């Protein structure tokens, strides 16, 4: 039970994606133009992640090692099709807003990364806990990033104008460059806080530090880029 809670909560802060573990950057940067898009995307990923973790973990002993990636992709693709159909049925405007990023959940590193790094090695209940934790963490980060960008870029939050009168929005924040700069600054801030904590307590690091040059940019778990499989 303790293990269950540990796996559940690690995704919420200690290994929160995509800030601590750089997984699935594309949707993070592309759909966080406003907070509600970020929230919707996060929930879609949460759904796929929990179910794919559960299924992969329950069939982990039958899948031959050599074709495991193909099996993982098929399972997650099936779930993504389900999400697409559900979104078309119930939240069609959001589906149109997110556009091709809904089908692109298939190639999101976070799904395959967790499948490979966690679900294929652990029993079902732990895999589900990991999926929920990571998914919730991802949803929180996306909403947070979306809220910052929406607030600065349009002066609104979840579509409601809340900045002071005469506020001039920085349009750049809702464009592509704003995403990069915003995420970069948040990462830097998190690193800074971690350094500061370590210095103050003067004890060994509880976190994985992102700045370390040997740390691959996407956790190394995803088969989609070079840092995972070869060091380039």
């Amino acid at each position, binding site marked *: 039970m303790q293990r269950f809670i540990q796996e559940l909560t690690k995704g919420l802060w200690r290994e929160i994606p995509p800030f601590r573990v*750089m997984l*699935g*950057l*594309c949707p*993070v*940067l*592309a759909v966080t133009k406003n907070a509600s898009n970020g929230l919707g995307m996060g929930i879609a990923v949460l759904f796929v992640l929990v179910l794919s973790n559960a299924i992969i973990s329950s069939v982990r002993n039958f899948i031959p090692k050599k074709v495991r*990636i193909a099996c993982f*992709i*098929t399972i997650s*693709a*099936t779930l*993504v*099709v389900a999400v*697409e*159909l559900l979104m078309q049925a119930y939240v069609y405007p959001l589906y149109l807003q997110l*556009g*091709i990023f809904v*089908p*692109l959940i*298939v*190639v*999101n*590193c976070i799904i*395959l990364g967790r499948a490979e790094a966690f679900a294929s090695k652990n029993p079902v209940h732990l895999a589900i806990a990991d999926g929920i934790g990571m998914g919730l963490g991802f949803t929180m980060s996306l909403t947070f990033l979306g809220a910052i960008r929406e607030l600065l870029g349009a002066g609104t939050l979840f579509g409601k104008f809340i900045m002071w009168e005469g506020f001039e929005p920085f349009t*750049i924040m809702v*464009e*592509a*460059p*704003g*995403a*990069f*700069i915003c*995420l*970069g*600054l948040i*990462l*830097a*801030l998190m*690193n*800074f806080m971690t*350094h500061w904590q370590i210095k103050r307590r003067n004890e060994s690091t509880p976190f994985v530090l*992102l*700045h*370390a*040059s040997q*740390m*691959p*940019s*996407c956790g190394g778990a*995803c*088969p*989609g*880029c*070079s*840092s*995972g*499989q*070869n060091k*380039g």
Partner: protein
Amino acid sequence: MSVFEVFVSAIFVNNIVLSQNLGQCPYVGCSKEKGVAIGMGSAVIFVTVMATMFTWMAQKYLLDPFELGYLQTLAFILIIAALVQFVEMFLKKAIPPLYASLGIFLPLITTNCCVMGVTLMVQRDELGLMDSLIYAFATGAGFLLALILMAGVRERLETCRVPKAMQGTPIALIMAGIMALTFMAFKGMV
């Protein structure tokens, strides 16, 4: 649109990495050295064009006639995965020198959103086969350009003194942001 316009649009105006935010993982992950960047970029061009061709045909002759449009995602990712595997085996057997330079990047491309994204965008915009292939090639070229530029910047960055908290990924992302800002200047060209 003429071929030239498609190229300018896909490489500069709507660059896949810097303006559409696709293919970020390799953009941040494989842009540490120029050689790696060129290898990865060329492999992406190659696979994107091939994948676009096959998925276009699958959509036109398999999914549409049988009204299986909702299986698009599943079908496309399986085609891309199988294609990448096949291309890798073919290159290994038939053209070893090319395999030596591109081979190591091929397995990593299956989950590159760049490839999948282009095949989906081509379907969304309902382009013809020839237009799709040109668009796929131009988008791949845009990816290559962004990757090489980033690798060049990061090679220089190695010798710079960056604040401790900014080292690694944060500074790379901010660099990417500035680069995206420069590319925004191309807006209005097409």
